[in-house]
């Protein structure tokens, strides 16, 4: 069974790459894709990056998405609508702790719903 994938969206490339290091120290087998900054690496968000990250993170068990501020959420919602699937959940949990908890839960082989619920319970 594939593990639930995670997508980390931030206005800053450095935030998600740092968070990725933090999680990878503990969890190595869960798909994690990053969408940090704009197309040219500046501060902001990019629908194209988010779209690619979500598609890549889905190994068949769905994707849980974490975001930081403002437009990150709107862009994530737009991508979820465009992809027309219920296998994407956008989590309202804080980016760092939420993604950390989700990585551990996903690594236990839980389903998308279960991982999302577990994260919700923590915050």
């Amino acid at each position, binding site marked *: 069974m594939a593990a639930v994938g995670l997508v980390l969206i931030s206005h800053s490339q450095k935030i998600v790459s740092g968070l990725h290091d933090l999680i990878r120290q503990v969890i190595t087998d869960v798909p994690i894709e990053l969408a940090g900054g*704009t*197309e040219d690496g*500046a*501060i*902001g*968000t*990019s*629908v*194209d990056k988010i779209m690619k990250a979500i598609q890549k993170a889905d190994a068949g068990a769905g994707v849980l998405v974490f975001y930081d*501020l*403002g*437009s990150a959420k*709107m*862009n994530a*919602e*737009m991508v979820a609508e465009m992809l027309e699937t219920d296998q994407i959940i956008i989590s309202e949990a804080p980016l760092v702790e939420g993604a950390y908890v989700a990585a551990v839960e996903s690594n236990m082989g839980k389903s998308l719903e279960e991982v999302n619920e577990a994260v919700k319970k923590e915050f």
Partner: protein
Amino acid sequence: MEIDVQTAISWLNKANEKMQAEKDYLTKLDQETGDGDHGINMARGFSEVENKIANGNYETCADVFKDTAMTLMSKIGGASGPLYGTAFLRLSTALKGQDPVDEKAFAQGVQAALEGIQQRGKASVGEKTMVDVWQPIAAYLQETSAIEAAQLEKIAKEAMEATKDLIATKGRAAYFKERSKGAIDPGAASSFYLFSALAEVLKEAK
């Protein structure tokens, strides 16, 4: 008055001209209450739109607006990307298959665009966002029996200026709470330029 492919293209090119001319001003507004990227975002987005539609071969203005939506969505890079992108996508969907588009259909399209912005950003009137300009414009277009360019521009301008005294409760400016008061909302300003571009194009078309 009718809107056809050529009017739609002229509108967007004129809007681009304004976004380039007002780039620094929009950025300045966004520095007051946000991250100072709105001018750059809008200038980049609309210049990509002008390039994109210059190379298209369009049969209906819905197709022009669809390409506009996709380009703005992927090129703006801030909150206004998904918001303007959704607006033009809804406008395109509402006008699908019609060409030229009459005033009534166009008015319904703008109403659909407004609803799209609100669905995407969850903002209502009075939260110091672009909604504060789109809403009165959509209402005017629906009420009037014949669009008057001068009136259109006036409504947009007054609506934009009225955002000055509001406190932002949506978007990045909301973090500034009370301090967001006193400056025009950047998205309301760029929306004013968009509709003032439309007013100019309609005036010329007469």
